[in-house]
């Protein structure tokens, strides 16, 4: 085995390649003979053509989410969308209360933003998800207070692929007059997303999780531009004053096309991926001592997060370097830190530390899955052989 072997890409949850059809639309907005003008240059025809393409993309993104076009605000990605949603709503509605509810298993873009608001005087309740890592109204309701202004819960968890039970949370928020933000970065294009069905007031999406380009995303804001947020980035008043900066035509057009394709192809693709995923899981679980992390039923088709008994995480990752996968542990820091998501799920340290996230997508094939299964089985077996047995010398836990 050497590093020059062709890598099997099983990290679609980290990022996806850009679909070639999307690449073509993007290139159409770049070069000197393309639609490169500034969409803000309304004084000339090339600028207006760029603006038209931006607005068409806005309609595509709105359509995928069941939203109206002016409710879509372009951002640089879901990290910015999450920041803008949470800080923007918190600061805009600061006079109504300074309490926010979220979950312990959110993405860092939500958690770090909440930590920042804590420094600025907000109070945050971080609820622990229920069975199988699912966040539902049962966890959120007890955390609500009269001064709660915002609830933020992700749609699909990026580490374990579980699908939270959002509609009842949306309903609850509506009843209590609390804003509801959904981080849908891992959901858009993977399963049906409808802002009304979810009861979402704010919803973050990113292009690069759905075969669009990195560095562009959107925030859905219900009722925009009449409803408002405190902007984070000032200067020129683009996007109804809520997000200034030159609009990146090719990025936005790429996101629009990616979301259009996702809308058209999602149902068939979800089926194909679910069956590939099942094949992958069947192959891995055959090893024995393999645990699926997160609810086995409420999940997106593309993501499997598994823990292996008796193998150490860093060695596993290195042994599997022909696979591009993510690990549930942080190896570069002094003390290896297991994923906060798996810890919130109650996984013990050994299992949390030896977890892998395998995520498949549009270009994954059955052959790749089969090769991956063969590799994982061989390497897990080898590492288990290297490992001391429980009955080796004194007891397992002794120093």
């Amino acid at each position, binding site marked *: 085995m050497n590093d020059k072997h062709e890598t099997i890409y099983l990290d679609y949850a980290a990022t996806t390649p850009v679909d070639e059809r999307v690449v073509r639309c993007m290139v159409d907005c770049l070069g000197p003979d393309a639609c490169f003008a500034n969409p803000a240059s309304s004084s000339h025809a090339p600028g207006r053509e760029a603006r038209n393409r931006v607005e068409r993309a806005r309609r595509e993104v709105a359509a995928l989410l069941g939203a109206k076009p002016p409710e879509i605000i372009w951002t640089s990605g879901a990290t910015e969308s999450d920041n803008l949603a949470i800080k923007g709503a918190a600061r805009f509605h600061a006079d109504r209360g300074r309490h926010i509810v979220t979950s312990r298993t959110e993405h860092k873009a939500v958690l770090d933003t909440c930590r920042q608001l804590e420094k600025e005087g907000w109070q945050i309740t971080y609820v622990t998800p229920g069975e199988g890592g699912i966040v539902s109204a049962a966890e959120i309701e007890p955390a609500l207070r009269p001064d709660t202004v915002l609830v933020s819960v992700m749609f699909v968890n990026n580490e374990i692929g579980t699908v939270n039970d959002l509609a009842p949370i949306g309903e609850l928020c509506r009843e209590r007059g609390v804003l509801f933000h959904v981080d849908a970065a891992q959901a858009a294009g993977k399963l049906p997303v409808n802002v009304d069905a979810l009861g979402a007031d704010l919803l973050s999406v990113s292009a690069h999780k759905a075969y669009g380009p990195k560095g562009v995303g959107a925030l859905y804001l219900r009722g925009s531009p009449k409803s408002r947020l405190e902007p984070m980035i000032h200067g020129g008043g683009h996007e109804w004053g809520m997000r200034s900066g030159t609009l990146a035509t090719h990025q936005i057009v790429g996101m629009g096309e990616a979301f259009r394709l996702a809308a058209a192809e999602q149902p068939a693709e979800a089926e194909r991926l679910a069956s590939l995923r099942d094949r992958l899981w069947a192959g891995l679980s055959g090893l024995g001592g393999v645990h699926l992390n997160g609810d086995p039923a409420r999940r997106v088709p593309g993501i499997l997060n598994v823990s292996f008994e008796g193998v150490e995480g860093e*060695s596993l990752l290195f042994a599997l370097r022909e696979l591009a996968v*993510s690990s549930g542990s*942080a*190896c570069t820091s002094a003390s290896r830190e297991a994923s906060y998501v798996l810890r919130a799920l109650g996984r013990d*340290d050994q299992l949390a530390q030896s977890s892998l996230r395998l995520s498949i997508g549009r270009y994954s094939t059955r052959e790749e899955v089969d090769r991956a299964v063969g590799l994982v089985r061989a390497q897990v077996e080898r590492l288990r052989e290297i490992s*001391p047995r429980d009955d080796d*010398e004194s007891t*397992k836990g002794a120093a």
Partner: protein
Amino acid sequence: MSLHAGLPEYSSEVRRRFERAPRLGHLAGKLPGRVSGAAGDVRQGVRVVFEARLAEGRVAQCRFRAYGCPHVIAAASWVAEHAEGRRVDPAWPDVHQLARLLQVPPHKLGSLLVVQDAFRACMAAPREA
């Protein structure tokens, strides 16, 4: 999750020992002069076990098993191999020497200590009759 989940660079010595794991295993059968020792805890991410046969104040044979990162596996393998033929020496091996030889990054010294502890425990253990 992927942000900090990087792999360090491994030296070619670490890679070779991780792949082939020379001196992995047990000393088979009933052996006079056999000693064994262990250190670490799987729950903390590192556990190392050594077995050796001592004869005339020297290590005649040595085997290891390890749960840990590639540096730990490589270090245990190196220690087992280089122990053979050596005089029993309570001050050997030395983590800093191991770190240098295998090019182990400083934050891994703690894991190498487990290897050292396991080998020293083995040397200090009562011999089988």
